[in-house]
Each structure stands twice: as structure tokens, then as C-alpha cells.
């Protein structure tokens, strides 16, 4: 109930503060409607893998699951600190959830050595999450090395997309992405 009240109150406040006179002669906002014109919203809904929508809805920061790394680098860059913090916060709030972090590398060099390099990337993300309060047993860091490239190309652009760690979620009931 509380959750529903807050947006309603906010809406009332915004209307109350509005000081711009509304010109009644201007055309009403045009809406393009299809069908009933109603967008279905499911509160607390789950996606097809049984995960809460806030983890997969493209509008949610938590749907951003990839952290990219520079060549030969294994530290989480500053531009991903907020992203990692959001995931850490989710894990702190939702203690039954677990994540699998998969580290990846570009294709150059030994497959097994790349597997170890990918591990360094996933370990770095894991450290960031646990420092921010996620429990050790909520986070597993593994490596896919060069074996699962996001971009199958063989140029610098492809390689930069493949130097990456991905965060996969699993719900307390065991459903999810891994």
C-alpha cells in the first residue's frame, strides 16, 4: 500500500507546485493509442527466467551486466563503479540472490592462459561487490577465457568488446541465468 501511495503523493505535489498557467486553447497532448491504449504493468513481476524484472528490464541499471576492461588490465574502471555499486546494493538487500561473474578475454594467446586472465577480471568484480557488502557465498567468479566472445570479429573493436566480465543472477528458488 505504501508503495502505491508515494507516487500518488509525488504527482499531487508536482501539480500543486506548477505555476505556469495552462493555455486551455492549446491542443490536448496527442496520444497514439493502439488497442485498449493500456500498457500492462505487472507489479513485482518475474521475467521468463524467474528473475525480478528490475534485474532484466532495460530501463533498470541492474539490467546492465557487463563491465569492460582495457587491454592487459584487470581493475574495474571508475566508469563502472556505480554499476557495480548498484549490483552490490541489490545483493545486500536481496540476501537470497546469488551471482556468477564470468570473466572473458580477447582471442589472442594461449586458451588456458587467457582462462586465467579472465579469472583475474571476474575476481576484480567479485572483490568490488564483497567490499560493498555482498556476502562471499553470494558471489562466484569464474572465467570463460577467450571461449565465448561477444563479438566474433578479429579486430580491435571486437577484442575490446570481448575483454569483459558479465554478471549472471540466480533467484533463491534456483531459477535464473546460471
Amino acid at each position: 500500500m505504501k508503495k502505491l501511495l508515494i507516487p500518488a503523493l509525488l504527482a499531487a505535489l508536482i501539480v500543486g507546485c506548477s505555476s505556469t498557467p495552462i493555455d486551455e486553447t492549446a491542443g490536448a497532448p496527442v496520444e497514439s493509442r493502439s488497442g485498449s491504449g493500456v500498457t500492462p504493468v505487472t507489479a513485482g513481476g518475474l521475467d521468463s527466467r524467474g528473475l525480478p524484472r528490475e534485474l532484466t528490464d532495460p530501463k533498470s541499471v541492474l539490467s546492465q551486466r557487463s563491465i569492460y576492461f582495457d587491454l592487459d588490465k584487470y581493475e574495474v574502471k571508475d566508469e563502472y563503479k556505480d554499476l557495480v555499486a548498484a549490483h552490490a546494493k541489490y545483493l545486500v538487500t536481496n540476501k537470497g540472490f546469488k551471482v556468477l561473474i564470468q570473466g572473458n578475454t580477447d582471442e589472442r594467446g594461449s586458451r588456458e592462459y587467457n582462462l586465467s586472465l579472465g579469472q583475474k577480471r571476474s575476481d576484480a568484480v567479485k572483490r568490488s561487490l564483497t567490499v560493498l557488502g555482498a556476502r562471499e557465498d553470494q558471489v562466484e567468479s569464474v572465467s570463460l577465457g577467450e571461449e565465448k566472445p561477444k563479438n566474433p570479429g578479429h579486430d580491435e573493436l571486437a577484442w575490446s568488446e570481448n575483454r569483459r566480465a558479465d554478471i549472471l543472477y540466480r533467484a533463491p528458488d534456483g531459477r535464473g541465468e546460471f
Partner: protein
Amino acid sequence: MPQIFHKILLSLALMAATLAQAQLTVEITGAGANRIPVAIANFAGDAAAAQVVTATVRADLERSGLFKLVDPGATPLDENVQVNLGDWKGRGADALAAGSLARGADGRMEARFRLYDTQKQVALGGAVFVTSNDQLRAAGHRIADYIYEKLTGERGVFSTRIAYVIKSGNQFRLQIADADGQGAATALSSAEPIISPVWSPDGSKLAYVSFEKKKPVIYIHSLASGQRQVVANFKGSNSAPAWAPDGQRLAIVLSKDGNSQIYAVNADGTGLQRLSQSSGIDTEPRFSPDGGTIYFTSDRGGSPQIYRMSANGGGAQRVTFEGTYNVSPRPSPDGKSLAFIARRDGRFQLSVMDLASKQVQILTDSQKDESPSFAPNSRMILFATEIGGRGVLSAVSSDGRIKQRLSIAGGDVREPAWGPFIQ
């Protein structure tokens, strides 16, 4: 650069259309300097069977790069016929093999042969191999091994098998084939990657890393039964298995305690013991043939280099010093050399170090060599490389002279592993 002596396309007799796609084609792109001229006569007896056997023997010897085939003429010669060795010497053959194929009382085929030295005018020996009809090529490989050993003094590897991974589309297949690429069979199909296959010393099993659980896990796979067993599925990554020569234990790499580190484990997954202790990456362990030493890759010195340590763990000594990227160490079965991949000017090239002199030789001029694997007689090194953006297997002799290429239509081939001698 070794000169290209000849270029021959072999291995085209396909049993079934479905096999065609999975068949490796072997192309010889270089040969030894002093090839032994040898004549393999058409074997007598059952003509169809004899054709399969003699074709296999000839192809094997030719592919090795150590022999030059002398035209034997069309007349079949069995192992008991009186041959005029002087004539054969006159035709340019240093050695001659003659034989026959006959169906035994139990319905199986018997392949008999005799090998002659035309210089010394003596018989070097002979043998009989009994096989079922669909194993005629295996009999040919056995005969080729016999001839190879008599004439070169080292054991042949024509009867051995190789394992490799094919990626086609999003499908990964771990395949087993004869050393000439024929008779390929799929041991494992998966929608997730399979890497790092290694043969058990008795040739009955493979250990490998499969990603089917969304993370790398080490399995042991019995080839005859198809039975699979998880050897290591600890938290984090499990990878880079290597068999100890006794077949009882494996060295593996785990990240469960932080960085990738080397551990030993029994083949049934019990008795885990940590072997390496570093704050960096330690991976790609391989046992020396006597089992006493483990070679591995480590970045403890700031760049990936090859080190060695006791198989019981403890202190490590650096082995490679040239360049900033030396990985994937593979000691040769004879213990004399170490194959590895070196990065030079941005190219990843198969290299070999003579362990006594520490002399390093770069064996290829390719861009993207990976995963070397010695033949059990230490003469050839099989490895993965890329040609025209496609994964192929190549083999090169440890002196760099003889070169072969094994490719598959419509697939990326990688992660080769040469199996042990067949007992």
C-alpha cells in the same frame, strides 16, 4: 624456410557421406632431406582388402616425410615369393615390402608381410596381423609402423590416435581420429566450449575442460564406454588438466583460493593437494616424462614465462627468458626438448627448446599457433593454427623440416592432442 618438396592430397576414400564433413584432410607441405626410397608391392590374395592395406601403408610412409615411394609395378607380390632384391635395388628401392591378405577360418582377415633390405640383400623380418574386415586400415597402420621402425630405428606412430575439437556454428565436438585423420568419431557434443583435452597414458580416457555448467569444469571421459566423471568442480574455474605418467594423478589448475594455481588430484577427484604458491597466475602444468618435474606457465615475473618445479611442488626455476610471452610448455616424451608457443613481433609461433643446450628454434612462420602436442615418438609436433581465418591443425617435425596440414571442410579445428602408443 624448409623447401616445399611436394604437395600431395591424401585420404579421400570416405566410407559414408555423413563422415565426409568430419574427415580431416592431410596435406604434406614439406619433407625430410634424405628420404629412404622404399617400394611397397601390391599385396597378393584378396584384391579389395589388399588394396586398402597397401594404400594405407604407402600413405602413412609418404606422409611421415621420411620415405620416398618407389613405383612397385602392378604385379602383386606375396611374402613368400622369391624376389630378386638386386632388381629392386636397381629400381632405386633401398627396401621392399611384399605381402598377402587372406580370410582366416573364423572369417577374419589375415595380413601377412615381409620386409627386405635390398642393399644388404636380406629379409628384415615380417609379421601377421589378424583383423576384422572394417579394421583393414588399422592393419595397414601396424605394418607401416613395423616398416618405419625397422628402417628408421624409432617407433612409428601410424597406429596412434589424435583428439581435437571442432567448432561448427555454435556446436562443439570433441573428436577422436586415427593419426592420419581418418575414422573420426565424436566422443562428446556440446553447445558450450570444450578445451584442453589430454590423453590418459594408457590411451583409454581423455581429461578435458567443458563449459557446459556455465563455467570451466574438469572431466575424465572413458572413450569405450562414454562414461564421464567430474574430477574437479570447485568454486571458481577448474582447468588445464595434465596426467602424471603413472595415470593415477593429474595436475590441474583451480582458482578456488584466489588466483589460478596448480594442484594435484587423484583421477577419481580425491586427494587434492596444492602444488604452486604464487600471488600471480600459475597454469598449463605438464609433467616431464619421468614424472618428477612439472613445467608450467606463470606471470610471477611480470610477463607469462615457462617455469619448472618438482612434481611435489615447492620452488620454481624459470626456463624461458627470450621475449615477453612464452606459454603452453610441452616436454617431449623422450625428455630431450620442450615445445611451447612464443610471441615474437605480435605473432604466436610454435618453438622448441633443446633442454640440454637451452637453444630455442622457432618452427613455423605462422601468426596464431596454439596448443602444441608431441607425437609419442617425439618426432612430430601437432598444433593448432589459423589459415585464412579458419582453425586448422598442423604438424611439424621437431627439426622443422617436415610439415603437414590437417583441415576440415566447414569447421574450425582446434585443441589437438596426440595420443600415446597403442600397446
